């Protein structure tokens, strides 16, 4: 920005502008100004359409290897409460926003987002026409990008980004998994959520959770629904897990290309059928890989908090939080079983066919028997959830823990408990009945209030 422009900004909440630049491998370039740590970072460009919940996005380990663009222009408005973070350290490579707020306002805010990012060394740019960027990514697809505050020469950055390592094939889960097994329980729930989020029910199931980059809120939701958790590294051998004799095994979300996470899915194959299993996001893909299914890379992924997903068992639509760039190719799980699929014999590419028909089709999987498609994305007809009929296992591609996003699918945590209890109808839960299950209202809000900071789970 010019000197005169800087002069106009004097005395505002905006810091003195320092140039920054984002360049995509196809040559698209976006200028802005630096709004957090200085540096030069490489990653896959993606965008998230959540209106709020930026801290949850920034700290979601599944964003490892990515430069995230927020589509909502003004980010940081309500500041940062570290209890809302999904991991101790942000794993994303960089952040792109239209406008970064340095003067936030919210009673729970401890520091501003730019300060938080700077503290954690995250490179971020503001002032970018993010809508133009998002339209470009939507039309031209996900690709490598470089974000730099040290080199703002377009040609130089383009050369560098084209030489950078692509995301496909990288095992990013390994980079965000825990180092050794550890327990997570009711004591780890953040106190500063108590004004709004229901306390844990008494623990009644012992669950081992594979950590491929698990979001804290998933673990917290499991704890709240009565799980006593042992969180283990991504590549923990199945034998060790089974030796703990858990009531169930949970497979977490995680970043990047599922093909590269063989260390997990090879073990999942051994666990399936032994104990009840529930997988979310990458965990869903791990189960699919274990069943021998194919995984595809989506053009620009699903990232946001407004995707409609139909539960084919109930016909109800859930508004879901999503964050994935790869997805299950449902027909690759096996041949359709017509007698369990409304008489239909052939697979449909667009799975919304089944939503319209009101049928939850079943395939015959060579390894694990019958698998039912339970959830379909109504925006693009991709697979969002499956349930195994011959072994106790189910998984969803989207995020029932939300964080950020709507909590319509909270019932899936309840369902996992019911599965571990051996109930056949474990997935048959009315969203409306479960609607307020995870929340609390009322007087305790006022009394626990002001517990800023709290325990950092």
């Amino acid at each position, binding site marked *: 920005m010019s000197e005169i422009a800087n002069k106009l900004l004097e005395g505002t909440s905006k810091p003195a502008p320092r140039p920054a630049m984002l360049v995509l491998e196809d040559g698209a370039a976006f200028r802005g100004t630096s709004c957090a740590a200085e540096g030069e970072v490489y990653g896959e460009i993606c965008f998230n359409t959540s209106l709020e919940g930026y801290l949850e996005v920034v700290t979601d380990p599944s964003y490892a290897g990515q430069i995230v663009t927020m589509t909502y222009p003004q980010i940081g408005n309500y500041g940062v409460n570290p209890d809302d973070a999904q991991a101790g350290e942000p794993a994303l490579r960089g952040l792109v926003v239209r406008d970064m707020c340095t003067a936030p306002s919210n009673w729970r805010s401890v520091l501003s987002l730019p300060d938080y990012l700077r503290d954690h060394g995250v490179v971020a740019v503001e002032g970018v026409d993010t809508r133009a960027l998002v339209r470009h990514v939507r039309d031209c697809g996900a690709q490598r990008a470089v974000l730099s505050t040290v080199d703002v020469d377009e040609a130089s950055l383009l050369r560098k980004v084209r030489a950078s390592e692509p995301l496909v094939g990288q095992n990013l889960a390994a980079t965000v998994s825990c180092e050794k097994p550890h327990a997570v329980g009711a004591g780890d729930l953040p106190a500063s959520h108590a004004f709004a*989020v229901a306390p844990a029910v008494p623990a009644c199931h012992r669950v081992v959770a594979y950590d491929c980059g698990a979001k804290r809120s998933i673990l917290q939701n499991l704890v709240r629904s009565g799980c006593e958790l042992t969180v283990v590294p991504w590549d923990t051998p199945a034998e060790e897990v089974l030796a703990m004799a858990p009531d169930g095994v949970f497979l977490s979300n995680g970043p990047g290309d599922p093909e590269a996470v063989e260390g997990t899915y090879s073990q999942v194959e051994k666990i399936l059928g032994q104990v009840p299993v529930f997988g979310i996001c990458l965990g869903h893909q791990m189960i699919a890989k274990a069943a021998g299914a194919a995984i595809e890379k989506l053009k620009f992924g699903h990232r946001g908090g407004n995707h409609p997903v139909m539960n084919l068992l109930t016909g109800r639509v859930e508004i879901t939080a999503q964050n994935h760039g790869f997805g299950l190719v449902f027909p690759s799980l096996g041949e359709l079983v017509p007698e369990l699929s409304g008489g239909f014999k052939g697979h449909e590419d667009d799975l919304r066919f089944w939503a319209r028909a009101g049928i939850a089709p079943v395939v015959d999987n060579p390894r694990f028997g019958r698998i039912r498609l339970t959830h379909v994305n109504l925006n693009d007809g991709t697979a969002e959830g499956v349930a195994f009929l011959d072994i106790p296992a189910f998984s969803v591609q989207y995020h029932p823990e939300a964080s950020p996003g709507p909590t319509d699918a909270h019932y899936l945590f309840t369902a996992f408990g019911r599965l571990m209890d051996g109930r056949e109808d474990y997935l048959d839960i009315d969203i409306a009945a479960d609607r307020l299950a995870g929340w609390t209202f009322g007087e305790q809000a006022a009394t626990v209030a002001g517990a800023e900071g709290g325990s950092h789970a």
Partner: protein
Amino acid sequence: MPKRDDIKTILVIGSGPIVIGQACEFDYSGAQACKVLKADGYRVVLVNSNPATIMTDPGLADRTYVEPITPEFVEQVIVKERPDALLPTLGGQTGLNTAVDLARAGILDKYGVEMIGCDLAAIERGEDRKLFNECMAELGIETSRSGYAYSLADAEAIVAELGYPVVLRPSFTLGGAGGGIAHDQAELHEIVGQGLELSPAGEVLVEESIEGWKEYEMEVMRDHAGNGIIVCSIENFDAMGVHTGDSITVAPAQTLSDVEYQRMRAASLAILEKIGVETGGSNVQFAVNPDNGRMIVIEMNPRVSRSSALASKATGFPIAKAAAKLAVGYTLDEIVNDITKATPACFEPSIDYCVVKVPRFAFEKFQGADDTLSTRMKAVGEVMAIGRTFEEALGKAMRSLENGRSGLGADGKDAGLPDGEAFDDLVARPTADRVFYLAEALRRGWTVERVCAATGIDPFFISRMADIVRVQENLRGMHLDELDADAFRLLKRMGLSDAQIAHLTGADELTVRTCRKLLGVKPAFKTVDTCAAEFPSSTAYHYKTYDADETEVAPKTRRRAMILGAGPNRIGQGIEFDYCCVHASYALAEAGFETIMVNCNPETVSTDYDTSDKLYFEPLTFEDVMDIVDVERPDGVVVTLGGQTPLKLANALAEAGVPIMGTSPEAIDLAEDRDRFSAILDEMAITYPAAGMASTYQEACVVADQIGFPLLVRPSYVLGGRGMGIVYDGAQLEKYMAEAAKISPDHPVYLDRFLEGAVEVDLDALCDGSQVYVGGVLEHIEMAGIHSGDSACCTPPFALSEALVSQLRSVARDLALRLGVVGLINIQFAIKDQVIYIIEANPRASRTVPFVSKATGVPLAKMAARIMAGEKIADLGLPPDDRRLEHYSVKEAVMPFGRFPGADTVLGPEMKSTGEVMGIAGNFPAAFAKTQLAISYALPEGGTVFISVCDRDKRAIVSIARDIVRLGFKVVATGGTARALRAAGVDCEEVKKVHEGAPNVLDRIAAGEIALMINTPFGHATRADGYELRLEAVKHGVTHVTNLAGAQAMVAGMEMARANGLTVVALQDLPQWG
């Protein structure tokens, strides 16, 4: 599930006249609903008394009844049309209440009409405070704690639990009279004591105060399968204590973290389910304690509301359309997202811009009224602005208000604000202009913290404003040529207008514009697409921003016509003009144009994204309109259908080379400029009232000597009748001149001969340059001196001779041709002693165009648009304009006095009405009676009529009083009037005037004895006896008439209604043309 086929005919109830709190947003929602139901193959029957609506266009529903929205009339419609279902949730509170009345009275059951969308029980749970609180308690969601007090001791006991301050609301008082906030015991005793007395039930609700909390609104939709979505979250800029309708609001919510927002979301859906809203849209309001996040639900509306309209425009998600489809059985996942045309409507819109709504007030019209904003809505309209940031959107909104401001301050209009405590009060007290005082406070160096502490407004918003003000102040005093492209871009991104930049740099606006464009700083146009660009969208709903890497305007493929809308609703410029713009858009589309609508009013049909081919949601300023012209390159721009707002841009646009459609700016000027217009009238030998101009009392006396009293006086610098008055003698003139000099010393006052007792006539005509078509001649019921917008009128004229009417036509023809009108012209005549005077001529669509169109079956605005596009009247296929109509149509104005306790209710030359109703019947009195029913929902049936008239009217009142007695009413009158009546042999009781001591007429009103009040004031007096009387009448909801002509029509109407009953008629049964 597909749509229901067990229902064929659906009755839709509209919301009636535009009143404060219930405006044209319900035309928008109702019109959407009718359209979509009809498209789905249903037979739609509509009842709405408001003629200025798109929804009452005869083409929109199958059967359209412009009839009073009362259970009696709706039952008649039900008997005639035998609908299978009633959709009650799209007609505001009026529609909902009427549906409830019909259900409770057993009428729906009797005729087998099913209520769809929401059943009676759910409506009751949503509306009844006690039932609602019980439902919330069952959910475990907090409502504000409260209790009912029947004595002072009760109240104290409740306060012991809640603590001070408490909000006190006496039950069942009109307009919340007697309520207040008590901060200590003394105040508690005072207010509760008073409240117990005022409340017919002797009951006062004592409620914990949540003033100063943050306020949020969630727009929720649900289908019968139980799928629920949040369409939009809205955060109020003003803290709790200011009605949402009076508050600046922002979408989406700005300062809630995910955990807070998601909890509110889950609660909203749970509340909808609990209340039992089966399908459709609702809104839920919450208050959040800014110190600890404690969340309280304030209320929910089980229907489409004002905020639904705002949410629809803010997100692109058509709530009303979806609600109608859901009501007939579709589920959300079966409805396609209208904007993307590819994804389902079952999702939650994600937006990548910020939306700011700012209310528009009209306190200047209601002198004496308290202008402090409170929990009772007072705004008459609103604007919405879209920007990529709050700063950009706020700046746009502040220059959209049509109040002479160029943005958030920095336009030289804040000079003269006081200092010290007076200024502190301006900042602290919520008023119409407070946002400007906040900016001024920041400019004066108040810290963000100080402003927040004084106002309770969230620091987020104040910080953003502080940045804007800082940048403005940094710019102040710089020279325009110091600014480079980066600087310009920064200023524009901060929401500054060219006019503000001009003011701050001492340049003029055009130079700023030229300079900016030379530096290449041009805006981009982005799209409202419901999905933050995640999916491609084919709908051209655009807004302007200076995030200008990419613009999304599609290239031109055919002729483009651009229609400039009317901006925010305000008194004098309402929905009528939006109606005209929408019609023009339809007509020009039919004529092969690509139509482009520009407007900033979220309540309207014109800003529905499917009304025109393209919609630009932008302020109607020269800068903003020119920016759109630059990218769209329209072949013609329509400026004559949106009222004064676009009309005043005509010259500047023409000078900038923009092709104006229809009447040329030169012709507009000819009619608007007093001197030029007078010269034309002289040339054509048309009479007009003698007039003069004066700056001092002395000068005024000279003028008065020349033309004689009474005089119509008005300041020369305002439009819309503001500050107008009638003076009858030198003393009143002196007082008026003194006040005018105080308000605006630099502007002279116009003095016109006031034609006392003259009959006023409005005439709307089309002209193509060579032929004139008189659309309608409207005879006013009130005599001259009452603003034409406030006067009832009738077409065809009910008392004018045919010879006179044809004379009026001939004058109109000559004048329209002489002025060179191409399109619409409205002429106001006064007729006194058989002489025709021209009061004024407006070469544009008038307020009466929709009414005339409905009364005559000729859609004038559409025809005007076709003429502007080059067609000739001869080719339009119109019926002869002098044909005889078989029915009479009366338009009556609707007044907002109930909202402005303290304001005088006397009608005068300054317009005060917010809306209008129409009555259609075989004769004038019956049509007039329908309009009264449509407004007050009941005609006085019996009891006592109070009469007090000024000396001028004493003779004429006798025959009216005689009729009143004949109809079985008792008459009470004040001294002089009683004497006149008795002298004429009319039996009446005498009652004391207010200043004559107690007991007087006020007590009779307060006791509920008076069914009708006839009180005509004299001259300019506002503080006189009559003033208090009329205030009392408003407070107790007594029908009152302030002029004789109105009284006469009222009496005739009552008689007609009683004698024959009033029957309903569908517009489709009257002749329709075009």
